[in-house]
């Protein structure tokens, strides 16, 4: 291990239950009359970005809010289905802030920061209050009270939901609040803008360079702080459950300006997605995990058995999750379900046209409960599956395969959500802080809104109140220099004039990433990725083809810039996975498993965050660490047998 530099997370002193309360009191405030003198840039309009921009506008700051879509309402938070956790204990079933904290630390396989997680659990209750007050139509009981469900194997019912569209409804709530501030003149909205670089003045984040995606012009914006709310990087795998425009470019360019990138190898692969069918597919569709409550996962016992599922007798089927994990069966956590599906497929027992799928069979459940009950529970999901695949799950087993879904890694932030660049903050999926090595279901929405509504309004105020910032203009030499670099980057891409499209190269990268930096990793494979990715990168820079003009609406140029960054981020992910020689959460190293083939952590050597520092092009980045301490939740090995 090359751990040289140790990072200070600035965790407040005191018991974990009092840290946030005390810290809120200790932080300096910005006088109401002074707030309007500060300008804040917020990049992204998902749950984190929209909630931050709206809340800061309400407080009186001048906010400049950017998004790549045509409207803030389209950010990918909109696609979250299941729900949002909160420690309300409305069900009287034993939930509490402390239990949500405990479950999240444990679920993250002891690689999350305790203080952050406790704060997240604390503010979770205010999030639900806020969203209900906004008119978010959560599901209700007949008495008019809010309805909850248990989600992702949790022992308490703490998940609030709005049909299968919880993310959409929460986002529309935040979007409404945001648009109200636009009307009030406190937020200025810049849709169809892509942040391409960060501008630092005296080593402090003071602005951004954007490309106007309609005109192609580069634009400059200055501010007193920059908030990055740009989501995760699952699309590095090309095929994922994320939207096709999701990307890591803003975060990656900040990494190159000095923001450390933490735990890039911590990615979550979701087990219940519709398998890929061919080369030209553009995305993988997620189906709710709830399907595993009644569906039984199996593959044929014999390799290469290509009979129809109905022709394979019971004795020749391998219900591998039930056999291996009798206590939890088909309901084992996401990472375990995903990994086992991959293993049986790699043994040659996968099904479907590609051999990379397993059956999710409702035959037994339909016999036991009747078709009506199953239709009531999963009717919409069955219809969706039927629509996409052409197969009717009432008649024949579904086929599923895991897909990249969420990235726990992201820009390193301290307790105040500030990155290693002063004045640059990261919120939501773009940061790394709260989920450790694995995120629990229904916790992503919670974290995005926690950061935006209830954390950043306090910590940003403290930063502005305690930092002396000289006025800057977008005409300063610092802006000139970065703008020139961005222009040179665009020119370089346009000048390659080769024969391969950005998508073709992205697919090539995605194949390596899913094979070697996907569900299970090992030294040899990771080294292969570290050899292959630079080769693909070379091909990209020598043979990329971008038609059209840079000063125009040009989707291919957008894609190319993002793929260029993925080709570097992918390498960092492989490097991070190689250095973390333990298994934990979504990161499974074949070399680190117990006698029963389960993930084995190495707490002695890896109870830390790995944060990577950029040292220049063609230089190996430096691996810095933040030691993690568990004062409240005692690390234990997970067992689902």
């Amino acid at each position, binding site marked *: 291990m090359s751990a040289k530099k140790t990072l200070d997370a600035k965790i407040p002193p005191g018991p974990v239950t009092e840290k946030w309360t005390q810290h809120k009191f200790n932080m300096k405030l910005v006088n109401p009359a002074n707030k309007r003198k500060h300008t804040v840039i917020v990049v992204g309009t998902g749950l984190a970005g929209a909630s931050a921009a*709206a*809340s800061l506008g*309400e407080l009186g700051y001048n906010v400049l809010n950017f998004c790549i*879509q*045509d*409207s*803030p*309402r*389209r950010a990918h938070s*909109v*696609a979250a289905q299941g729900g949002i956790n909160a420690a*309300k204990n409305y069900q009287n079933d034993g939930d509490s802030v402390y239990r949500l904290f405990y479950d999240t630390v444990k679920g993250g396989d002891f690689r999350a920061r305790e203080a952050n997680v406790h704060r997240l659990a604390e503010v979770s209750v*205010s999030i*639900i*209050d*806020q969203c*209900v*007050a*906004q*008119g978010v*139509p959560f599901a*209700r009981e*007949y008495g*008019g*009270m*809010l309805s909850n469900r248990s989600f992702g194997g949790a022992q308490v019912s703490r998940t609030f939901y*709005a*049909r299968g569209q919880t993310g*959409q*409804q929460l986002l*529309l*709530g935040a*979007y*409404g*609040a945001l*648009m109200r501030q*636009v*009307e009030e003149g406190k937020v200025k*909205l810049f*849709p169809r803008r892509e942040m391409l670089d960060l501008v630092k003045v005296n080593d402090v984040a003071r602005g951004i360079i954007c490309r106007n995606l309609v005109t192609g012009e580069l634009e400059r914006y200055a501010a007193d702080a920059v908030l990055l709310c740009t989501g995760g990087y699952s699309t590095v795998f090309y095929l994922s459950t994320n*939207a*096709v425009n999701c990307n890591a470019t803003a975060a990656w360019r900040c990494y190159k300006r000095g923001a450390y990138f933490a735990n890039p190898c911590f990615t979550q692969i979701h087990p219940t997605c519709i398998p890929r*069918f*061919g080369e*030209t597919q*553009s*995305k993988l*569709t*997620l189906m709710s995990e709830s399907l595993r409550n009644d569906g039984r996962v199996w593959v044929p016992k014999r390799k290469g058995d290509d009979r129809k599922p109905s022709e394979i007798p019971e004795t020749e089927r391998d219900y591998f999750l039930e056999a291996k994990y009798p206590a939890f069966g088909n309901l084992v956590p996401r990472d375990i379900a995903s990994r086992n599906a991959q293993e049986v497929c790699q043994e040659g027992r996968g099904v479907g046209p590609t051999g990379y799928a397993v059956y999710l069979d409702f035959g037994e459940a339909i016999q036991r409960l009747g078709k009506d009950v199953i239709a009531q529970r999963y009717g919409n999901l069955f219809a969706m599956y039927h*629509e*996409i695949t*052409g197969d009717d799950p009432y008649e024949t087993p579904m086929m599923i395969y895991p897909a990249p879904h969420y990235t726990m890694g992201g820009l390193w932030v301290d307790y105040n959500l500030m990155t290693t660049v002063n004045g640059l903050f990261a919120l939501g999926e773009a940061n790394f802080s709260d989920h450790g090595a694995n995120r629990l279901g229904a916790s992503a929405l919670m974290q995005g809104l926690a950061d935006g*509504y209830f954390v950043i*309004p306090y910590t940003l105020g403290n930063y502005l109140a305690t930092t002396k910032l000289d006025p800057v203009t977008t005409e300063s030499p610092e802006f000139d220099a970065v703008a020139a670099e961005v222009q040179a980057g665009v020119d370089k891409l346009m000048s390659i004039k080769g024969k391969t499209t950005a*998508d073709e190269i992205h697919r090539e990268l995605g194949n390596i990433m899913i094979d070697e930096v996907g569900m299970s990793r090992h030294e040899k494979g990771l080294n292969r990725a570290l050899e292959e990715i630079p080769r693909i990168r070379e091909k990209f820079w020598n043979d990329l083809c971008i*038609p*059209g003009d840079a000063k*125009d*609406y040009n989707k*291919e140029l957008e894609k190319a810039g993002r793929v260029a960054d993925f080709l570097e981020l992918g390498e960092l992910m492989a490097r991070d996975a190689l250095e973390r020689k333990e298994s934990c959460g979504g990161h499974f190293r074949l070399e680190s498993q117990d006698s029963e083939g389960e993930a084995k952590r190495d707490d002695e050597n890896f109870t830390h965050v790995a944060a990577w520092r950029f040292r220049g092009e063609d230089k190996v980045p430096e691996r810095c660490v933040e030691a993690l301490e568990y004062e409240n939740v005692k690390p234990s090995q997970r067992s689902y047998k």
Partner: protein
Amino acid sequence: MNVNLRIWRQPGPNAPGRLVDYSLDEIDPSQSFLEMLDKLNEKLIHEGQEPVAFESDCREGICGNCGLVINGIAHGPKGACTTCEVRMRQFNSGDTITVEPFRAKAFPLIKDLVVNRSAFDRIMSKGGFVAVNTGSAQDANLIPIHKDDAERAMDAAACIGCGACVAACPNASASLFVGAKVSQFTWLPQGQVERHTRVLKMVKQMDSEGFGDCSNHAECEAACPKEISISNIGRMRREYTKAVFAAV
């Protein structure tokens, strides 16, 4: 399978546009309509031509970003789905498929099949919210809401803001879009305080953006990927009338 495509090409808002013919083969029937267009674009790029500009993001029917008029129908002939949810198996090999943008005066064209729908955002900024600052909310269960009302509010709130209702309407009216948002808050106690001002301001903005009026063709409901009912327009009109009298 193979298809013949007639696609609207227009380099910019002020340039003339026209339908251009393409043919594409080796299409997998499992492909989505947009994946078929991806394939066409890859082919065009390899032939040294400019790809067709179109928009999409989530590709699972929820972000509202994609929107094409396929064979004269917004989001295609199947109904109750977005363009990204249209699958090629809905067509026959050899079909000719016409692809055009969502056309409306209030949705100015940017390029090819891409239009500007920011008029929707401006309407929402006038009242598509409950004005409650962060932190000032009471405990969530202090606002009991009848289950049926919550369900009705959710039916209306399901709108994804794609603009198919406008594209389908012979008057290019945004009444279903506005009606859905007005209805959502009409069903909920949280929406009552601003009930009158909301509908007045949103309707005023809708009119000033150049959307037409509703004349009950119900094409909007037929095109809506989320099957939002035209009854929301009736509710908006009632709310508007009540608000006008309340304001006197």
